[in-house]
């Protein structure tokens, strides 16, 4: 007995296709579905904050939502991890957090596209964060930036072994930053897709064969419950991953902002 579940291709939802082909000087600048959903996310974030920035003493619903976002980034990320010297980086971390969270959440809507499930998008965001670390590190400390790789208070015999490890762990950071967001988003969407395809596939099989295979209706119902549960999980993951990306950017920035006098 073989189950034929129809044409199931869980990777199809990640295909990028051109909506408005634009080509300038041999460079492909087409508006793809990825670009479209990034633009939608960016404009929704902007609308959210324009609507919420009202400066009332007793805040309305939208204003208190915006303020709690601000408190989260200011209090438990920038304030807790970098300290007062991190205030100049607050707008960057805040933008990163809200933009990634919005892209993740929009991607959960049916028939939409998750921009963060493209490695190119997450790698670009990671490059911004690591680039900022380099700019701040070399800009403020010059060649003293390389003290980052030498743990303080370590005897030189031990440092011979520790410095290569520190350099290695520093150089995998952009890859882990990009891979984490991409992997979580992609794996989550594939999982939801597979369970959703079981709902229809098992139901159609049971309807077509009758007899003992009527039991598969139960499997179909369980899959439907799993889809609902996974969607809730994905909603949590969407925010947690945005939070983690922004918090790790904070930690990496902290090392160069407070270089030498640990924090």
């Amino acid at each position, binding site marked *: 007995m073989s189950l034929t579940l129809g044409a199931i291709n869980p990777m199809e939802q990640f295909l990028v296709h051109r909506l408005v082909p634009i080509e300038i000087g041999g460079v492909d600048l087409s508006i793809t579905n990825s670009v479209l959903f990034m633009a939608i996310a960016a404009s929704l974030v902007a609308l959210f904050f324009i609507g919420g920035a009202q400066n009332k003493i007793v805040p309305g619903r939208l204003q208190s939502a915006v303020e709690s976002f601000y408190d989260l980034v200011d209090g438990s990320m920038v304030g807790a991890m970098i300290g007062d010297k991190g205030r100049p980086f607050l707008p960057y971390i805040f933008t990163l957090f809200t933009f990634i969270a919005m892209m993740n959440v929009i991607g959960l809507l049916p028939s939409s596209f998750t921009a963060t499930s493209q490695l190119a998008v997450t790698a670009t965001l990671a490059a911004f964060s690591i680039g900022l670390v380099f700019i701040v590190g070399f800009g403020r400390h010059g060649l003293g930036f390389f003290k980052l790789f030498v743990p303080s208070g370590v005897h030189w015999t031990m440092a011979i072994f520790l410095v290569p490890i520190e350099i290695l762990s520093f150089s995998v950071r952009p890859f882990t930053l990009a891979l*984490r967001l991409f992997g979580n988003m992609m794996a989550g969407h594939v999982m939801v897709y597979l369970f959703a395809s079981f709902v229809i596939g098992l139901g159609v099989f049971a309807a077509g064969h009758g007899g003992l295979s009527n039991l598969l209706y139960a499997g179909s119902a369980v899959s439907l419950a799993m889809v609902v549960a996974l969607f809730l999980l994905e909603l949590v993951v969407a925010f947690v*991953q945005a*939070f983690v990306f922004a*918090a790790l950017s904070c930690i990496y920035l902290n090392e160069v902002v407070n270089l030498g006098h640990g924090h």
Partner: protein
Amino acid sequence: MDIHVAKQIGAGLAMTGLIGAGIGLGVLFGNYLQAAMRNPSAAAGERIWLFLGMALTETMGLFGFAMGLIIYYT
């Protein structure tokens, strides 16, 4: 052995890296919960480190996932 078959086996084996990530996440959340039950007033302050630890642990599993993709598609 056909190269395609070997690739599928290799990609499947690369996924065993997720075993370690699973154990790590279990240890992490179990210990956090234990600590939070013993001293509930300190739990809120440590939650940020819980999520960061989760992210770093997960990365090790995702390395395996990335290796699986590389083996399968190249």
